[in-house]
C-alpha cells in the first residue's frame, strides 16, 4: 500500500494547503512504514513538492481539468489511488478539497474523517483527531474501512520542509465526458485582496465601529500586515461589509496564525468560527467584553484611537524589520 496526497494548485501554482497536505502525507507514510505518492493536476512545477517529502509525484495534465470539476477531479484521484495501490488518501480543506473528499469517499468505498488536526494517534485501529462542536471539542475517530480518507484542517499540521529525492511521472487517466454533469459558467474572483482562506493574518471588526464608513483604518491595518479583512455577522447583515467577510458559526471559518478583533464582543457564535486561530488580539472599549476571555493579548480602548496608533507602530516596525 501507499499514502496518496492530492496537492491542489490554482493557475498552476501550489496553494499553501497543498504543501501542508504533502508534509502531513510524508508524516503518515513514515508512520505506516510505506511510501508517499503525490498527485498534481495541471501544476507548473511539480518537483517543488520534493522539498516537502513527496517521493513520487504523479502529474496529470489535461485541458479538460483546467476548471475545477469535483466529480472529474475525484475520478482522477481514484484512478491514481488504484494505480498506486494507495489506501490512505489525504485531501486539504480548501473550498475545493471539502467539495471533493465525500465524492472520493464513495468512489473508493472509504471511510472519511474531515477536519483532522493532527497525525494519526494510532495506526491500528487507525485513529485521527478531528475538530467537533465548532472547535469547542475534539473527536478521536477510528476509520475502520480498508480505504481511508483524511480531510486535513487548514493550518493544523503546518508546512514542514523535508527534502527528499524522488521521481516525477506523467499519468494520463481516462476522463469520461459523463463526469461533467455540472458545468462551470463563470468564476468571479475578488482580485487584489488577500482572501480569508489564504491569509496568515486576519483583521476583523464588529459593530463597535458604528458604520461601514469607518472601515478605512481596518483596511489600512490589514494592508500593513498583509492580512485579509473580516467582520462579525451583524456587520455583514447591516450591509456595512460584504457577506464574504462574515466569519463565525454561520460564516467562514478562520484558522489563521493571528486574528485581530476590533469592536467585536466575542459572542459564542463568533468565537466558534475563529478559535482555531493561533494568536488572538482583542481591542474593545468594554473590559467585560467576553472576547477577552478567549484572547491572548488585549487592549481596553477606543478602536478609533488604538487602531491608527497600531497602524503607525506597525509601519515603523516594518520599516525597521523589512
Amino acid at each position, binding site marked *: 500500500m501507499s499514502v496518496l496526497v492530492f496537492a491542489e494548485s490554482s493557475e498552476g501554482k501550489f496553494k499553501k494547503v497543498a504543501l501542508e497536505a504533502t508534509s502531513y502525507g510524508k508524516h503518515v507514510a513514515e508512520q505506516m512504514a510505506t511510501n508517499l505518492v503525490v498527485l498534481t493536476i495541471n501544476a507548473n512545477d511539480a518537483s517543488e513538492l520534493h522539498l516537502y517529502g513527496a517521493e513520487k509525484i504523479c502529474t496529470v495534465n489535461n485541458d479538460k481539468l483546467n476548471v475545477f470539476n469535483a466529480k472529474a477531479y475525484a475520478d482522477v484521484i481514484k484512478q491514481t489511488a488504484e494505480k498506486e495501490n494507495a489506501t490512505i488518501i489525504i485531501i486539504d480543506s480548501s473550498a475545493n478539497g471539502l467539495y471533493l473528499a465525500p465524492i472520493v469517499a*464513495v468512489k473508493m468505498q472509504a471511510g472519511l474523517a474531515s477536519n483532522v488536526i493532527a497525525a494519526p494517534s494510532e495506526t491500528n485501529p487507525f485513529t485521527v483527531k478531528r*475538530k467537533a462542536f465548532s472547535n469547542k471539542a475534539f473527536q478521536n475517530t477510528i476509520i475502520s474501512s480498508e480505504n481511508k480518507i483524511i480531510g486535513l484542517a487548514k493550518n493544523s499540521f503546518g508546512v514542514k520542509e523535508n527534502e527528499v529525492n524522488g521521481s516525477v511521472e506523467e499519468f494520463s487517466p481516462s476522463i469520461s465526458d459523463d463526469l461533467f454533469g*455540472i458545468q462551470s459558467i463563470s468564476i468571479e474572483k475578488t482580485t487584489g485582496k488577500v*482572501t480569508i482562506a489564504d491569509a496568515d493574518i486576519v483583521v476583523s471588526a464588529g459593530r463597535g465601529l458604528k458604520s461601514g464608513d469607518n472601515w478605512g483604518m481596518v483596511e489600512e491595518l490589514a494592508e500593513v500586515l498583509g492580512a485579509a479583512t473580516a467582520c462579525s455577522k451583524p456587520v455583514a447583515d447591516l450591509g456595512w461589509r460584504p457577506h464574504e467577510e462574515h466569519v463565525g458559526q*454561520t460564516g467562514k471559518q478562520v484558522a489563521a496564525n493571528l486574528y485581530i478583533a476590533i469592536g467585536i464582543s466575542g459572542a459564542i457564535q463568533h468565537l466558534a468560527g475563529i478559535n482555531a486561530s493561533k494568536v488572538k488580539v482583542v481591542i474593545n472599549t468594554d473590559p467585560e467584553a467576553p472576547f477577552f476571555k478567549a484572547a491572548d493579548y488585549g487592549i481596553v480602548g477606543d478602536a478609533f484611537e488604538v487602531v491608527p496608533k497600531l497602524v503607525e*507602530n506597525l509601519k515603523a516596525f516594518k520599516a525597521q524589520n523589512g
Partner: protein
Amino acid sequence: MKVLVCISHVPDTTSKINFTEGDTKFDTNGVQYVINPHDEYSLTRAMWFKEKQGASITVVNVGEVTTEPTLRKCLAIGADDAIRVNTQATDSYTVAKQLAEVVKNGNYDLVLAGKESIDYNGQMVPGIMASILDYNFVNACVSLDVDGNTATISREIDGGKEILTANLPLVVAGQKGIVEEKDLRIPNMRGIMMARKKPLQVVEAVDFAAKTTAANFEKPAAKSACKMIDADNVAELVSLLHNEAKVI
C-alpha cells in the same frame, strides 16, 4: 418539483459542551436542540420554491424519536410532510446511505442540505449521499434558481464565487447567502397548529456497516489568561507579537 430538505438536529450554539461515559458520549443534559442553521437557510430557500413555483417540500432527518420536535418545527415553518429514519446518527456515511434510500424511494427532483452540521462539523453527508445516488452535487451554495429541469447555482470558492449549471435531479448543500437573513422564518401560531396535523412518517433504517466510529471526545486545554496591554502603549503589543508570539 419535489424538494427534499435534509435536516440535522443539533445543540443550540450556546449549549455547554460536555461529555459523559468516560468522554465517549455527548452530554445532552439541559441541551436545547435546534434546526441546524445551515439547513434553516436551505429550508427557507425551499419555501420560496413552494410559494413561487408550486414545489412540495418534504423534510427528513436520520435520528431517534427525540429529533421529532425539530421536524415539527420545519413543518410549522411550512414543509408539507416529514420523514424520520429511525436510527442513531453517528457515522456520516451511514447517515448519507439512509438519506439516499429516502431520495430513491421518493423520487425527489431537488435535494437540499446544509453545508455542515454544527455539532460534529462533518461537511460530509450531502456529498456522500449525492455520490451514492450518482446525482450531480454542488457544495457551499450561496444562490440557487431552478427553471424547468435546469438549476443555476453559485458556489462559494476561496476568494470568490463560481456560477454553475446542472440538470435535475440534483443535491445542493446550502449556506448563508442562499437566502437573505431577513427572510428566515419564525413559525407562527397557525403554522404550529397546522404542523400537528401534517404527516410525519417513521421509516426503518437499512442495514449498513459503519466505516468510522467516534472513540472518544476531548476538550481543548484551558487557555492561559489574556495579557493586557495599556492603550497608550501600543508599541508593546507590536513587540509582543514579534518577539513572544512570533506571528509578525
